[in-house]
């Protein structure tokens, strides 16, 4: 798994690439939590993720909880069908703010209210 962080419309976007599984998810978790702890609004871009297992999803859950308690925003972008299946199985597709694309997020951000 590799990652890069970019800035977009007031969000820190974490692009994850490759497999997020039992061996790589601790690293993903660390990156996500650090980014949120730095009081950034965070989006996790899953377009490059081929496979995400429940340890990866658990890290996203932890991140979302931390963002909520710190009053920052958190969301998922470009969720692939495979990742969506895993989220749906745990009924988490209704919990996370899921955005179709970064542009969609930007539009919402420009029109407050």
């Amino acid at each position: 798994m590799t990652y890069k962080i970019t800035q977009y419309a007031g969000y820190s976007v974490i692009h994850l690439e490759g497999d997020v599984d039992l061996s790589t998810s601790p690293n993903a978790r660390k990156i996500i939590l650090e980014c949120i702890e730095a009081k950034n609004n965070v989006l996790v871009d899953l377009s490059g993720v081929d496979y995400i297992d429940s340890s990866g999803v658990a890290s996203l859950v932890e991140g979302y909880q931390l963002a909520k308690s710190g009053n920052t925003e958190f969301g998922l972008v470009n969720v692939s069908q495979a990742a969506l299946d895993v989220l749906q199985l745990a009924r988490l597709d209704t919990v996370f703010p899921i955005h179709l694309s970064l542009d969609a997020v930007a539009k919402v951000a420009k029109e407050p209210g």
Partner: protein
Amino acid sequence: MNKKIAEPVVEVQSLVAHYGSCEVLHGVDLSIQDGEIMVIMGGSGSGKSTVLRHMLGLNTPTSGVIKLLGQDITHISASKMDALRRNIGVSFQGGALFNSMTVGENIALPLREHTQLDEKTIRIMCRMKLELVNLAGFENLMPAQLSGGMVKRAALARAIIMDPKLLFFDEPSAGLDPVVSAELDELILRIRQAMKTTIVVVTHELDSTFRIADRITVLDQGNILMVGAIDEVRNSKNKRIKDLLERRAREIKIDAEEYLNRLTGETG
């Protein structure tokens, strides 16, 4: 991780097994494809549990090859077998939850033993699996406090905690009422749908078999009678399979003289 494996996920070739000096499997061949739900069906004494124990590496075969995820488990080093087991989940007939641990500890055990995940991640993963099997909020109970259906669901949660590629199921419906059993079948289908897991179910329950199976293997007295899709098995002309489907008792031909000798204990 998601690489397409061209070869079957489970491949059993001419498996012969003995209990003591009694041969119980007479050359079983089996091939299960990626993402398939294969039900191994048969009456008691058909050898289906024995086949399962060999596929799990709990028994050593007399001869034959058993390949799981491309690796021959009859000729594999202990450490490779350990690594392989992390990709395999098993739900036992009676659940086999560890009675000295809470439900949550049971489910988390594979993660605690095999991974370096953060304790928080482990706890979230456990709760996710408990949600999935509709046992949310039961993590601090002891297995003895659960009903039969709940034990099975907790056992399933433990079996899938590591997101295995291959899931074995021993008698999922045994001892459950029809409604609970149907729910469990539904769960099996959902898991396959979401995680693309290859699932092997060993059972004698017909209703359950026809609900979940992609293909069915019918075992009888240590031999494979047939392998086929649901309809093929339903329309089979084979007498033993018809008996099984219609729940008919086995007809036993009586040799009058031999029978008499058996009763009186005379030999010859």
